[in-house]
């Protein structure tokens, strides 16, 4: 099919995921969700905590990312992220711990607005995950 493009997700430890048959990827870009289809213009953007949705032919996969950078060029999409996990196999306890830590971070009064915004986003997304 011609609407497919390449996707690679890398974390510092390893190349997390590599696919060449995705049709659409929705990433939580910093200024709002962004859907990427084939032949998108070359773009670089960074991510806030949220969910990356990957649509390939028949199935849809969801991953949680903490932060990251996306680069789209010549029909290949790279996502660099320091923390990523599959929502299907996510660990409830781990999520709870992450929420707790993020909420702890929020109490730090020296945070600037941007960081505060990012962390509160993180708490929100994680909470919505743990209720599902």
């Amino acid at each position, binding site marked *: 099919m011609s609407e497919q493009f390449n996707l690679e997700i890398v974390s*510092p430890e390893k190349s997390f995921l590599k696919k060449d048959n995705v049709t659409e990827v929705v990433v939580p870009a910093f200024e709002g969700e962004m859907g990427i289809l084939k032949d998108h213009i070359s773009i*670089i953007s960074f991510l806030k905590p949220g969910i990356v949705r990957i649509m390939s032919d028949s199935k849809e996969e969801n991953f949680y990312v903490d932060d990251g950078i996306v680069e789209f060029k010549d029909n290949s999409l790279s996502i660099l992220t320091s923390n990523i996990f599959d929502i299907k196999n996510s660990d409830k306890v781990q999520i709870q711990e992450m929420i707790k830590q993020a909420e702890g971070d929020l109490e730090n009064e020296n945070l600037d607005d941007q960081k505060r915004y990012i962390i509160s986003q993180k708490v929100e997304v994680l909470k919505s995950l743990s209720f599902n």
Partner: protein
Amino acid sequence: MASLDDLKKRISSVKSTQKITKAMKMVAASKLRRAQESAEKGRPYSDKMNNIILNLSNSIIDKENSPKLLAGSGDDKVHLCIVMTSDRGLCGGFNTNIIKKAKLYFQKIIDAGKTLKIITVGSKGYDQLKRTYKENIIEKISFKESKNTNYFDADKVGKIIIEKFEKKEFDVCTIFYNQFKNVITQIPQEQQIIPLKATESEGNSSEDNYEFEPEEDEILSNLLPKNISTQIFKAMLENSASEQGSRMSAMDNATRNAGEMVDKLTIQYNRSRQAAITKELIEIISGAESL
């Protein structure tokens, strides 16, 4: 000449040392495989990161106002050196090579009349540097507790560096580590991370016109701190692979040397045993003849 008993003792002591070095070699070999794997797996991330930053910095027109982490503080007075070594010894020239490289650089800085600050990562580096550069070391970090190299640790180091940079405690930051080439070759590296040196631009990236969201500056100011942690992490991965490789070949040599020593001692032992027997025989025979 040493008595037979002494020789026997020495042989057995060398043999048990050989057993230890052999075991260490084996452990290092299995750890090396893992470390090498993760070093190779970590490369795409840092490569991609570098590429993106390269693209970004190419598209920034107003270089003067670009983020400080990229352009530098405009000064060149205080140099911060991050010396990354291992926490354990017995790994051949691994630590010494880094230190040697670092010391050369230190000398250059001091000769140029600039201020030198050092952060050591890994306790061996601190041990070797504290004699000469005690007052230059501003911090020592060690990750003895963490079993594997992980990004979290690297991020900690990165945050410390950035914090110090924002407080204007230094102008230029360089890291020292060993790059893993293969089991017997590790190349000590110095890499400047602040201000970022445009590393070997591959030319292919400059023509692309990217769209940025949000603006270039904002992306860059978010990306650069991450890049520092990434570079540190890369250095840590390379280092741990190098450490194991270096230890493996060092222990291999030690095992071989111990084997040679055992052979030599055994020959010496046999010879002196034979000499003693012959001497006894001569004594008996000459005693019998004199009767």
